């Protein structure tokens, strides 16, 4: 996204200066990055030797000549590795920045392509300088450091519902599709290599098993590449989850096939017994991986139950448990990717119910940051490794591989869809099939697996690597670049940028129950029935174990509603207060319009109150309506790099000004009738805690918020807060409550720990609370209000 369009305006030069500065910086880092490691890499031995000499000289120096004390010394070796790593990461990040400065480029060429090109350039530079390219795509580095963040990010934010609904299809593609690809490619390649042309080449010496091994390496769809490309094209959820799910689940197949063929390639034959063992191994690998992940996920969920007093390290648990799951799976050669996915998906609903909002944001930020950097690095390294890698180009082999990959994919997808459509209710159309086939991108995993091959066992390793790289390049560049225009051309359904409205949520739940009921009436146990059973089991036993406190009983609809309210409140604050609310649907509808006309004492009360001038009323109504109708929310979209805006990004001073305006308005708001009623939660409800965005270490402490960070205390559920406007009560104790309420105009008070003892006897009174005001007030620290007196006595 272009940051500026400065080049078009007369002040363009001035505006583009920072841009140029940034570009210059990038170039410098670039050069430094390539030159400095060279200097160090080229002479590690020499410098080591030099060190020894220095030491010796220093020793001798004590005895013989005294050298002057070095004011400035150069010792690169000590920091070499971290330095280089940081340099690479910096380079990657600057590249990412840079691409978006060039406006047209990022819309035509997907980022992955650009990054590979950058890698090629860097690799080329290093080679030109005559130095040895560092083995950056070392398999250990790749599998242990670069891959896990991406997979964890994908797994933690995996949309469970579409994934589960399409699980059968995904598994078919992942398992059967990959098997088909592997055997087809391997087999046909072997056939090709056996063709005896007039001049026999080294090709003919390739056995069947290495071919099959090669086939299994090259056949797996790569999650990194799929993520990178698909997230820019925004296709509909179904296709996205199908291709992406396939890329994740085929890891188990790849692992088994790889190990199987690698083991026996030396021996030369694979018997039927080995085949059967292979199948069993596959089940063990896949299910074992999932089991390991699930266990760690449950552990993480359980741990998060107790983190209420140490909020700061909550994100750490999520990361460490997940990484441990991955590593544990790798110990036993189980599928690490599936373990990671299972861990993230299992722990998520429970962890999110337990951790604070800030921790949630932290986890999101960190995951996306790491996965973004990892992805960038992977592509750059791919480019570098291409330049570096020993290549053995063989026209026949490579071209046949590329063609076979495409053909196998198409045949596989079409054939499988034919079978799958018999079992699916929502069938896959031809367009869908095309996208699925076209979206089968290969990536760095294939390369790393090839890299792992032992040169002794596989003399044709170089050729394999060349072929793999060619396929990767082909899929990423050609398919990656053309998929977007093709999607437009074929008018494939795009992802709906839909807000999740409360009505939709209600009806989703309603539908679930309805369909379960109809299935029960029909008498057969369809998947709604089992889903319902699982939900009930979850609610009854699992949630009680893994979720702390009251939240375990909170039904999903209410949780959703609270989340929505909070989001609305945050958005309201961000948008700058009452006066200029950019509502999507400007509407004058407020609660008054929909409440059934009844003659309650409230009406009488309204007349008893001083009437507001029309202008004021209008302002107030605008606030109410805009607050209630804020249903435009950012769906958890597949663009992994966007996040919900941080409410604290607003300037503090602006908030103070807003606060002043709000204070005035709220005083008037209280006098209006017909507010939205908000539930009165039982005392000390965690719903209240959840809604609080207070500083973490003090989530439940008695101390009210007194730090300098403006906090929003959207206390939706607390029945008794200083400024709750209980309309009925107001007329019960006519004058009594009013002045108190007036005093503490600002809504956003932290109803802190004292809420505990107070709540029980106050909870009964708090039936019809006018909490709307709460949602409206801005997050100023209650500077001029009574900070330490949170409650009405």
């Amino acid at each position, binding site marked *: 996204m272009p940051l500026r369009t400065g080049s078009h305006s007369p002040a363009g030069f001035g505006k583009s200066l920072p841009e140029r500065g940034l570009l210059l910086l990038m170039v410098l880092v670039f050069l430094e990055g390539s030159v400095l490691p060279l200097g160090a890499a080229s002479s590690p031995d020499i410098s080591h030797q030099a060190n020894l000499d220095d030491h010796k000289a220093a020793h001798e120096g004590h005895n013989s000549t005294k050298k002057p004390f070095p004011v400035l010394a150069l010792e690169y070796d000590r920091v070499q590795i971290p330095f280089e790593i940081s340099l690479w990461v910096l380079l990657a990040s600057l590249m990412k920045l840079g691409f978006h400065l060039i406006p047209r480029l990022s819309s035509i060429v997907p980022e992955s392509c650009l990054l590979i090109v950058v890698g090629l350039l860097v690799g080329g530079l290093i080679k030109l300088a005559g130095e040895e390219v560092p083995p950056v795509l070392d398999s250990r580095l790749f599998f242990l450091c670069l891959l896990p963040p991406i997979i964890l990010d994908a797994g933690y934010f995996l949309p469970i519902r579409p994934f589960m609904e399409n699980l059968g299809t995904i598994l078919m593609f992942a398992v059967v599709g990959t098997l088909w690809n592997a055997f087809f490619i391997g087999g046909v390649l072997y056939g090709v290599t056996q063709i005896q042309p007039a001049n026999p080449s080294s090709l003919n010496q390739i056995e069947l098993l290495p071919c099959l091994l090669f086939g299994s390496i090259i056949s797996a769809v790569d999650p990194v590449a799929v993520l990178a490309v698909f997230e820019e094209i925004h296709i509909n959820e179904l296709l996205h989850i199908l291709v992406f799910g396939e890329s994740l689940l085929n890891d188990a197949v790849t692992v088994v096939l790889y190990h199987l063929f690698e083991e026996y390639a030396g021996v030369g034959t694979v018997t039927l017994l080995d085949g059967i063992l292979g199948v069993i191994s596959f089940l063990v690998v896949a299910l074992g991986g999932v089991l390991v992940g699930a266990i760690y996920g449950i552990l993480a969920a359980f741990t998060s139950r107790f983190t209420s007093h140490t909020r700061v390290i909550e994100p750490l648990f999520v990361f460490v448990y997940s990484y441990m799951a991955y590593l544990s799976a790798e110990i036993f050669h189980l599928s690490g990717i599936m373990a990671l996915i299972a861990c993230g998906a299992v722990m998520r609903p429970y962890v999110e119910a337990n951790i604070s909002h800030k921790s949630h944001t932290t986890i999101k930020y960190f995951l996306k940051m790491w996965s973004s950097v990892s992805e960038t690095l992977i592509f750059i390294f791919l480019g570098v490794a291409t330049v570096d890698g020993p290549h053995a180009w063989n026209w026949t082999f490579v071209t046949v591989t590329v063609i076979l990959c495409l053909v196998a994919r198409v045949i596989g997808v079409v054939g499988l869809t034919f079978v799958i459509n018999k079992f699916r209710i929502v069938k896959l159309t031809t367009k869908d099939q095309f996208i699925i086939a076209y979206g089968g991108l290969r990536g760095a995993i294939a390369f790393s697996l090839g890299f792992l091959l032992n040169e002794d066992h596989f003399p044709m390793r170089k050729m394999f690597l060349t072929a793999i790289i060619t396929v990767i390049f082909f899929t990423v560049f050609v398919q990656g670049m053309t998929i977007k225009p093709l999607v437009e051309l074929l008018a494939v359904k795009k992802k709906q940028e839909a807000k999740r*409205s409360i009505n939709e949520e209600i009806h989703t739940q309603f539908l679930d129950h309805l*369909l379960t*009921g109809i299935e029960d009436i029909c*008498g057969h146990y369809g998947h709604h029935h089992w889903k319902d059973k699982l939900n009930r089991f979850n609610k009854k036993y699992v949630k009680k174990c893994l979720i702390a406190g009251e939240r375990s009983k909170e039904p999903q609809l209410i949780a959703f509603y609270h989340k929505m309210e909070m989001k609305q409140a945050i958005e309201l604050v961000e948008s700058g207060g009452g006066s200029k609310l950019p509502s999507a649907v400007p509407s004058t509808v407020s609660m*008054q319009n929909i409440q059934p006309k009844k003659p309650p004492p409230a009406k009488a009360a309204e007349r008893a109150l001083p009437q507001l001038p029309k202008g004021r009323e209008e302002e107030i109504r605008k606030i109410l309506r805009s607050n*209630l109708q804020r249903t435009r929310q950012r769906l958890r979209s597949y663009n992994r790099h966007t996040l919900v805006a941080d409410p604290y990004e607003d300037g503090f001073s602006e908030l103070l000004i807003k606060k002043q305006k709000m204070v005035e308005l709220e005083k008037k708001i209280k006098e209006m009738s017909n507010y939205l009623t908000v539930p009165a939660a039982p005392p000390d409800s965690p719903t209240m805690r959840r809604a609080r965005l207070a500083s973490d270490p003090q989530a439940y402490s008695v101390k009210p918020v007194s730090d300098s960070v403006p906090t929003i205390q959207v206390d939706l559920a607390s029945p008794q807060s200083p400024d709750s406007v209980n309309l009925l009560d107001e007329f019960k104790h006519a004058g009594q409550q009013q002045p108190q309420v007036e005093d503490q105009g600002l809504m956003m008070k932290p109803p802190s720990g004292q809420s505990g003892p107070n709540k029980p006897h106050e909870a009964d009174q708090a039936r019809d609370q006018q909490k709307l005001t709460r949602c409206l007030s801005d997050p100023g620290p209650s500077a001029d209000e009574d900070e330490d007196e949170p409650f009405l006595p």
Partner: protein
Amino acid sequence: MGAKQTRAEKYQDLMDKTGFSPEQIKNLHTRFQQLSDNEETISREDLEKIPALANNPIRKQIIEAFFDKRNQHQNEVGAFQEIGFEQFLMVMSHFRPPTLKTTEEEKEAMRKEKLRFLFNMHDTDNDGTITLEEYRKVVEELLKKSGAIGLEAAKAIADAAMLEVASTNVPHMAPEDFYEGITFEHFEQILKGLEMESRMHIRFLDVDTTTMRCGKSKS
């Protein structure tokens, strides 16, 4: 007319009306016999006896939907006391999924039909709109397992939902105007995003499943 009709003709008639295949109709007929104790009609009690339904929060509404005359598409209102197999099948036909051959218009019609079914479930007093009270009741039923919190929250949620419908469909209302209730058009509008034709369906079995059913439906 009725007595001499062969089974095949009867099935043909039903097939045309509801769109099921003969195997599906046969299966559903078997089920119907099971539910009705081999009688001609089933009553509300017969459906209430299904044990699996006991846990369903909207059980009453679902059962009521079977006896709702509006779901028979014959422009009648009111409720039956007992229904026969044809009416049973008619209600079930609302849950058929679209096929590959369904055209866009047919999908639209399907969606409308399904949404109409849902609408009828909410609009209990047959007046053509879902009032705030009725909507509140819907949400309450969904949340009734959650005790007191549920009831309080239900009111708030229903209010917010109603407001959302009103503001999406009738953006400019004067302060004194009153939004009567959700009409069918508004209902369609707010649930546009859910793509009912792909979501509101169950799998009707084509094969004979008497052996596959685990457990009896009654007792």
